[in-house]
């Protein structure tokens, strides 16, 4: 299997020198994301994210299983991110690269362990039946920033997804099909999003959303996950070079601004999509969901 082509010495010097002069290769500001496009599929729970040249598709699917005996009241939620040779010939099926391991670990920490999804709401009958939710992340095109793009895709897909309604009578649960009852949205507790900072030149320069060439010449990265209320879900640092604690605090401030912008964009796209589906304003009538306050209380 071929290795990922490394940037040449000249190219490396060029990128670093340009950064010293406050110029990025594509002319962006240091703290600017590439153009972000978010599209939803025809089905519920498919989000197609295009971040510059990076493209990620997340797909949510649901199944009914027996909950694990140690967590009787919880449903199952799983995020699967597997690289394929489509994104880069260096990715081999069945042999995860470091980037793949880091991606799945960060997604796990950022979304699953931060309780973004209320898994208790996936329980149908305690100890007997629950929904098993699965998020498949497909990397279609790779030009850096996979973690940020995947996190956006999974969160957007989770918010877009609707699960079928169930009717429980004693020990008998009936799953109602889409035709019988309007499917209901998942209960999302908060929306964590990742912002990756790449640092260069002994932590003098921090870049948001580095592309592949910039990722290859960086000294290290700091991945900050937070929601739009400023609650930090996780901070991870990879790469050998040391970093000043104050710089991390600064990263958090920038990340908050970025996360707010991203959440706003996701929200806007979700509303646009809802409007498109809601032909003739019938959805409000069909909805089987109880009204809940949208904003979770800020601690």
């Amino acid at each position, binding site marked *: *299997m*071929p290795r990922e082509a490394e940037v040449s010495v000249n190219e490396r010097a060029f990128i670093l020198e340009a950064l010293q002069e406050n110029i990025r290769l594509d002319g962006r500001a240091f703290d600017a994301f590439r153009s972000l496009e978010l599209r939803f*599929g*025809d*089905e519920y729970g*498919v989000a197609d994210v295009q971040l510059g*040249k990076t*493209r990620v*598709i997340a*797909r949510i*699917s649901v199944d009914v299983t027996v909950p694990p005996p140690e967590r009787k009241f919880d449903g199952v939620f799983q995020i*699967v991110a*597997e690289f*394929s*040779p*489509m*994104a*880069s*010939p260096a990715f081999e*099926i069945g042999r995860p690269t470091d980037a793949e391991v880091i991606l799945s670990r960060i997604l796990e920490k950022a979304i699953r362990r931060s309780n973004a999804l209320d898994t208790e709401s996936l329980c149908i009958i305690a100890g007997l039946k629950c929904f098993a939710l*699965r998020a*498949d992340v*497909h990397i*279609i*095109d*790779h*030009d850096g920033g996979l973690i940020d793009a995947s996190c956006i895709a999974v969160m957007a897909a989770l918010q877009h997804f609707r699960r079928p309604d169930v009717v429980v009578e004693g020990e008998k649960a009936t799953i109602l099909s889409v035709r019988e009852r309007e499917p209901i949205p998942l209960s999302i507790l908060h929306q964590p999003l990742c912002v990756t900072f790449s640092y260069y030149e002994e932590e003098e320069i921090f870049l948001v959303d580095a592309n592949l060439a910039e990722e290859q010449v960086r000294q290290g990265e700091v991945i900050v996950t937070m929601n739009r209320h400023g609650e930090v879900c996780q901070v991870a640092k990879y790469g050998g070079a040391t970093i000043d604690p104050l710089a991390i605090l600064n990263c958090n401030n920038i990340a908050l601004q970025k996360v707010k912008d991203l959440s706003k964009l996701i929200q806007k796209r979700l509303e646009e999509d809802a409007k498109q589906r809601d032909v003739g304003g019938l959805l409000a009538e069909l909805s089987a969901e109880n009204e809940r306050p949208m904003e979770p209380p800020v601690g």
Partner: protein
Amino acid sequence: MGPQAVLSHLHRADGSATYAQNGYSIIGSVNGPIEVLRRDELPEEATIEVNIRPAIGVGSPKERHLETLIHNTLRSIILTRSIPRTLLQITLQVRSLPEEDASTGVSTSLTLLPHLLNTALLSLLSASIPLSTIVTSVLLAIPANTSTPVCSPDPKELLRAKPIRSIHVFAFSGDRRLLLNESDGTFSYDEWEEACELAEDVCCKEEGGVGLGEGMEVDGPQDNMESWLRDVVKRKVEQEQRWRTAD
């Protein structure tokens, strides 16, 4: 409605294509010729690797089976001997399946197969891999109540025509030779032959204006896979050669 195709839209892969028909949407990419692992290296021909990735979950024996079928079909049209000791990596990612796919009561791997083959060919064309000929593929279903085969049926049509007695997948090369046939269900030889002839008409262009498919013209412009393919490639070449024609 005929299939839709977008070529060369991924920037990392050497060739790529997105293909959509009847609710099936598949993204294909080809990397090659690239360096091959020592253990896979063949001294006189290129190694072909086909990966099919389902929309949900990881690959199962169903995908492995489809990979084998596609691998064998493509090996007979790719000029592997002109690029020996290299690797051709073909990745097919199923993007979406129609909702009704699982409830039609027919083998879901057969309904997917022609779309995968067509996507693979488009990606190979986009990557400019040397081919000896093209391959076009089509699905045919024979419902239980009639014996006339339905050509590339919509999953909704399959639901309505339920029960389906047999389904067939045919793939033809550019010179009208049958490259692949997978059939499922009960059928007689005559039925199979009829289906095969119909598939040939749909897949291949008419030879020298002889009205082989005259019966088809009656129900509107029948989609012909080869002319559709030519059209897609023509559009792509026109797009790429714009700089020449512009004055």
